[in-house]
């Protein structure tokens, strides 16, 4: 089969690989029809995530058709069109049985602090991902779901991570009616978080980024007020002024490890890998939320230490809430929102990249060329 493989920082290519095999009775092999590159894939691409090995196939957002199933699989069958959450989880451990699917303890030998994620380094379990023609899907009775007949396949891909993660980020904010919500990051997760904040009853939603075309999307897709932090000497002071010096009730960090806005922070983390992530957006979130407010973190950070302004968080009495999204828990409600016309996830798709051209796709996404917001990866096309 054809598959994207990592060749070292900033380098990927497409190679012939063996089609994955059933390795456990509850495995399925899925033939991928559509995948995506996630902003968090860029942390791997840039070599920031410890234990990212040359030869690994990335990709944790994908949909496809069941090609083969293991002997104990009951809930999906060969030929079913399925959407697969980015979480790999057993459904039966201490954490899964409480709904914390992203914190599963039975799928990741390499680390106890994180569950299993497709194509996301050995730190997340050492599973190859879905930027390939085929992918192994463990616990096929637990993770994947059949794609409803009414659902567009591109909406389904966005529902495997970006859309539920943004929606989850808004939930972590514990938004109350009329709250002012600030979202750092106008990538797909930030845009979905902004849009979801209205669903939770926000009274005002403000999105911060430095890419004008993404801020334009925040205005049209998410009905948000927007500010380009590169235009302000100090975005925190500007946000204080915008909120009559109170600060926002809720701030969502939808940026994570490669935040811009401070040269030293960015370079020490993204370029020299001396921090688990550049905590610029997180520090701005801590500074711009009101005392007693809530900071929700859905941006991804690596496991190495980061220079976070924890003292301010403590002194302000903040509630910090965060996790990788337990995707499948979000699906029933998100399906309703899509059917009601409140959400159209595929509105964020800007590029459809053939698997064979994925190296250019990664570069484009990394360098933010061509007004890219969400690139899909289309398998089997030249």
């Amino acid at each position, binding site marked *: 089969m054809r598959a994207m493989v990592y060749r070292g920082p900033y380098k990927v290519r497409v190679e012939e690989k063996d089609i994955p095999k059933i390795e456990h009775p509850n495995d399925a092999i899925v033939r991928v029809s559509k995948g995506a590159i996630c902003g968090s894939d860029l942390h791997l691409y840039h070599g920031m995530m410890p*234990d990212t090995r040359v030869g690994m196939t990335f990709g944790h957002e994908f949909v496809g058709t069941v090609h083969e199933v293991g002997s104990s699989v009951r809930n999906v069958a060969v030929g079913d069109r399925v959407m697969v959450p980015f979480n790999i989880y*057993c459904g039966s451990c201490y954490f899964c049985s409480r709904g914390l699917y992203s914190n599963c303890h039975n799928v990741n030998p390499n680390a106890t602090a994180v569950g299993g994620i497709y194509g996301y380094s050995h730190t997340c379990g050492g599973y190859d991902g879905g930027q390939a023609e085929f992918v192994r899907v463990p616990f096929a009775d637990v993770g994947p779901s059949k794609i409803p007949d009414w659902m567009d396949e591109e909406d389904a891909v966005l529902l495997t991570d970006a859309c539920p993660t943004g929606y989850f980020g808004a939930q972590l904010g514990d938004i109350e*009616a009329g709250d002012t919500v600030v979202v750092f990051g106008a990538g797909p997760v930030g845009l979905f978080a902004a849009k979801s904040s209205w669903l939770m009853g926000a009274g005002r939603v403000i999105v911060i980024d430095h890419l004008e075309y993404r801020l334009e999307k925040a205005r049209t897709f998410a009905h948000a007020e927007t500010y380009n932090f590169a235009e302000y000497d100090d975005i925190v002071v500007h946000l204080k002024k915008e909120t009559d010096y109170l600060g926002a009730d809720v701030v969502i960090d939808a940026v994570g490890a490669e935040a811009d806005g401070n040269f030293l922070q960015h*370079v020490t983390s993204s370029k020299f890998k001396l921090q688990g992530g550049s905590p610029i957006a997180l520090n701005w979130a801590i500074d711009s939320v009101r005392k007693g407010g809530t900071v929700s973190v859905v941006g991804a950070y690596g496991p190495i230490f980061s220079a976070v302004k924890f003292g301010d968080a403590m002194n302000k009495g903040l509630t910090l809430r965060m996790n990788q999204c337990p995707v499948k828990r979000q699906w029933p409600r998100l399906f309703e929102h899509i059917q009601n016309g409140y959400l159209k996830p595929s509105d964020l798709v800007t590029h459809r990249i053939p698997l064979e051209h994925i190296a250019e796709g990664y*570069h484009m996404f990394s360098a933010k060329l061509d*007004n890219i917001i969400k690139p899909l990866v289309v398998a089997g096309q030249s």
Partner: protein
Amino acid sequence: MTETATPYISDKRTPKKSAEDLRAQIPGWGADLDPADRPSYPREQPGIETGAHWDFPERQPEKWPRERSVEHALLPPVFGTSTPPAGASGAIRRHAYKYSEGRAAHWLLLVAADRVDAWEHHLKSFAALRPDNPITETGVAAEFRRGGLSSRIGQKRADTDHQWIDPIIVGAPWVLGAAGLAAALKALGKHRTT
């Protein structure tokens, strides 16, 4: 006279938009206002239906000694089988797994192993039919096909202050490697002629 800003008094100065206005302007406004409609509320939901039909999953065969965190009591029953550790980078990785996730040594050794791994594979690729090609593998041609200049010039982007470092990170080791190889060949040539 300027008004006293909100935090110095007990009520917000800025009046909120009414729920009716917001509902009229924003599709779906307030649909999840009741926390009971939020799927991750409460965060933990003991007994949630997952589709699992086992108490403890059957164990996947361990085809090589699988590296694992010392914070695990046992090898989890299911795991990824991509890219087993090999070579010098594999030795560093195996050593890294002797330290817990709480120790910086664990992560810093893994990051070091990643760099060694990349070089092992670059060198190995030169002895293979398909050597690494930094031009195609970086996808840098997108700079010409996808508006590299127009995406940056005239834009108020904060990332252009560090993007110049990327070609150095990618290219410098190749340039240094080529220079080292040229120096070695030159020295070898000199040695043969004397």
